[in-house]
């Protein structure tokens, strides 16, 4: 079953970031399963009711709200490019989504639809299928936003409802919730459970198909059955209000499902609509829970955030912050990072500053009086750089990112990482393999992916032997790539 759970590690061997995964270790993304072809057996739902619940009794109001919700949940079929085989390949999968605006915005998971998608189609509750495009994605919260091809939908007279967000802050453990989606390709499956925990801490540096996730929000936990294919579908209350987007499950366990809280989803969705992305600030502090360390650091309980690690070369490092420092306040506002669950909101507070903002941190070191440190934020970037495949070389690569370079203590951000080779193609024959970093081609330092694409284009026009410099761990090798 494991292979049907995308979102399992795609880190490169020996990648130190693999050790960075914290919290619940075996939470995996669900979604994108191969369709089982059973969807057609399901009976079509009733006609779409209106969203308004102006009924006489509470129970009919609940019923209408829930029926409305059911008419807003879609199945998503995706075909996307993959680069890891040393070539461009297509893979396909199935997930779920929920329609959240009358003009056809569909919220789903980032691990269901990513920028690598080449074809996205949405199956409406009426079982009609319509195309959709990606508006934007945010792997940090595992959310992606699609827009249904409304021109086509109108032309064909396709109807659907619009779901509404509920307030995830008001959820309580024990409260009844439903998960709606396409588990294992079984379209419009409703499962029932309760909220098991409202504040589950989990972050992983490779949680969404090798991309980081969970650093800026905690998760809702539910025992409503969530299986592969449920991903991107809504977690709703009895009245049909969307309180979460189902996303993950615990591998090998039963009834441990996890969803992104609607209050996070709502904000992310707003930004994706406005800008197509969520821009965040980064300063390079990796926090740790202060629990039980207060007396050692001479702190009052519920005060401060422990700096566990400072990313080399980051704004915090340049400002002189060190591991073991305690951040007492951010811009004068006190910080409480006693428990792991409290860390994502603090991270989110820092991330929410506009890029380039000067942030004043009140920092205590070694029992000294707190001092103000000014840190200018930089743009948060993923450690996963842009990917590409060079077909005739039989090699796929990923650009070395700033985060990857820092994490691996590389001297600079030059080079591309080999993420796949095809047997008996020039790259493999030359001796290149997954994990190697190509630093020079034909004597030129590889600074951008574009540069390598140009060199490749020249090779395609006039194939010739090319000298390549590659590093593996600390060893530099020269190889010749022959046509």
């Amino acid at each position, binding site marked *: 079953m494991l292979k049907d759970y995308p979102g399992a590690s795609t880190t490169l061997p020996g990648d*130190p970031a693999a050790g960075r995964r914290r919290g619940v270790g075996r939470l995996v993304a669900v979604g994108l399963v191969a369709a089982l072809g059973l969807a057609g057996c399901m009976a079509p739902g009733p006609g779409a009711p209106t969203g308004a619940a102006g009924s006489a009794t509470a129970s009919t109001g609940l019923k209408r709200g829930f029926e409305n919700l059911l008419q807003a949940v879609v199945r998503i079929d995706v075909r996307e490019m993959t680069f890891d085989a040393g070539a461009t390949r297509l893979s396909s999968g199935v997930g779920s989504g929920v329609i959240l605006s009358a003009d056809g915005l569909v919220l789903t998971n980032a691990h269901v639809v990513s920028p690598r998608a080449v074809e996205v189609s949405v199956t409406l509750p009426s079982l009609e299928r319509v195309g959709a495009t990606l508006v934007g994605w945010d792997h940090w919260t595992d959310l992606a936003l699609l827009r249904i091809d409304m021109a086509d939908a109108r032309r064909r007279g396709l109807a659907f409802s619009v779901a509404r967000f509920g307030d995830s802050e008001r959820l309580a453990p024990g409260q009844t919730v439903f998960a709606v989606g396409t588990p294992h390709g079984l379209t419009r499956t409703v499962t029932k459970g309760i909220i098991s925990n409202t504040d589950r801490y989990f972050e992983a540096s490779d949680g969404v198909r090798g991309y980081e996730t969970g650093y800026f929000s905690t998760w809702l936990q539910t025992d409503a059955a969530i299986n592969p294919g449920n991903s991107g579908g809504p977690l709703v209350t009895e009245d049909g209000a969307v309180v979460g987007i189902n996303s993950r499950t615990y591998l090998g366990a039963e009834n441990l499902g996890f969803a992104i809280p609607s209050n996070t989803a709502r904000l992310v969705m707003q930004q994706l609509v406005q800008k197509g992305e969520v821009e965040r600030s980064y300063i390079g502090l*990796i926090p740790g829970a202060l629990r039980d*360390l207060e007396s050692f650091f001479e702190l009052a309980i519920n005060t401060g955030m422990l700096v566990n690690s400072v990313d080399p070369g980051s704004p915090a490092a340049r400002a002189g912050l060190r591991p073991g420092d305690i951040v007492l306040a951010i811009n004068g506002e006190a910080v409480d990072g006693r428990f792991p669950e409290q860390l994502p909101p603090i991270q989110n507070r820092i991330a929410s500053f506009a890029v380039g903002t000067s942030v004043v941190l009140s920092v205590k070191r070694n029992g000294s009086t707190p001092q103000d440190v000014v840190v200018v934020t930089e743009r948060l970037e993923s450690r996963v750089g842009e990917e590409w495949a060079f077909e005739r070389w039989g090699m796929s690569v990923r650009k070395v990112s700033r985060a990857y370079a820092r994490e691996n203590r*590389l001297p600079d951000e030059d080079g591309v990482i080999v993420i796949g080779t095809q047997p008996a193609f020039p790259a493999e024959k*030359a*001796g290149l*393999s997954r994990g*190697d970093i190509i630093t020079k081609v034909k004597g030129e330092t590889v600074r951008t992916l574009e540069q390598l694409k140009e060199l490749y284009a020249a090779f395609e026009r006039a194939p010739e032997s090319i*000298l390549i410099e590659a590093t593996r761990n*600390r060893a530099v090798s020269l190889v010749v790539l022959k046509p």
Partner: protein
Amino acid sequence: MVDSHAPLGRTRRLAWSLALVTAVLGVCTAHAADAPPLDRVFAERVRSVVAVEYFVETEVDRHPSTVVGIVADAKGLVVLLDSAIPGWLPPAQLKDFVIYRPGTSDGTPADYLGQDHLTGWHFLHARGGLGESVVPCTAYSTAEPVIGAEIWGVGIMGKDFEFQPYLLTGHVALVQQLPQRIGSTVSEIASPGAPVFARDGALLGWAGASNPQERLLYLENERYTVGLQNPNGTGSFFLAGEVLPYLHRVPAAPTGQPVPWLGVIGLQPVDREVAEFLKLGKSSAVVVSDVIADGPAARAGVQKRDIIVALEGRPLPRFSPDRVVTAYLEREILLRQPGDSLALGLLRGQTRVDLTITIGRQPRSLKEADRRYFPRLGITLRESVLYDLISRRMESGDERGVVANFVKPNTPAATAGLQAGDLILAIDNEPAVDYARAVERMDAIEQDAARSEFVLLISRGAETQVIRVRLR
């Protein structure tokens, strides 16, 4: 024996399966008809073979090992292969060496003299000698192996069989230069560490560790490629000419010997295509991946990414496989002494650069590093050596620390998350820059029964972490 630093992507192949056969027109060994009966020669030559038992002592347990060695002189000097003892273990953890003559159960206690940096061989001295019944390997005439000639070697059984010697026979199949000259037979010819002889009793060589043999494994319709290694028998041996001249290289002490050193990181061979690309003709080259700042190579002007093409004015020879050139170069360095000069011809981009390095002395190695075990805390602190910093890419930074070399399972430190291999940067907020000071600090914690906690700042992978160890 084959250099293990394969170039990018090249799979390691079996020594005997490699292409170039260096046919040696050696001295023909005596005809079998003229030779004395094999059982008699065998009984005589077995007197040069010994079994050695020793223990590796760790913080919490002892592991026994039994290996085979050769007698190198009449006073009780015994030589073991590089692979007989893990090279990274500090000699203080090697305990209770006992030398047994084959077929006996009364052993002679021995002292560990150390490991030679050139050959990697380990030297032992039997306390009070090994008596009249042993014969040093140096006592025999030597011969060159000839392809197809019948040869034999000594196998040694386990301790429960009182190290009974047994005869192994075969034919010379191949002789290669890797860069030392190594002979091979198709089947096992000796226990690793035992000598190999010609039919008439002339010494042909010394059996090395066995190479993994490539095999296909079929399991329920699945096919796997596996490497199988026989720990008790080997088909390859160093020729006598690669052994006898080095048997006198007994270290003066188990640690602290001056080892020649250039201060370069990651010497990488180039393959034939690259050599052609660099217009090297029939010679080979080695890439210097990086240089240690202020090391001997850096001081002489060597830069990272320089390509070594010549040594003492001579182009680097080409071997099969290409990667053997790295072992060749490393051996050439180790054959010299700290303070000696070494002339290198380098290719830097398109330019040829010639310079002379004054060979330096290798900084403390892993096995020479000071360490101390704190039994109550269950932690061994070890001073960090250059190797620790290089493997963490920290040699040019200013972060320093001591290494948690061992963490006893289920102790407070282990429960708190400390792992063996973590670099400890600070103990109770005090930077652990100086090993002696860090030990003092840890000792104070170890002695203080009233203490309730201590806090470590550790570095693991790319991140640091504050760890609180709760003692009570």
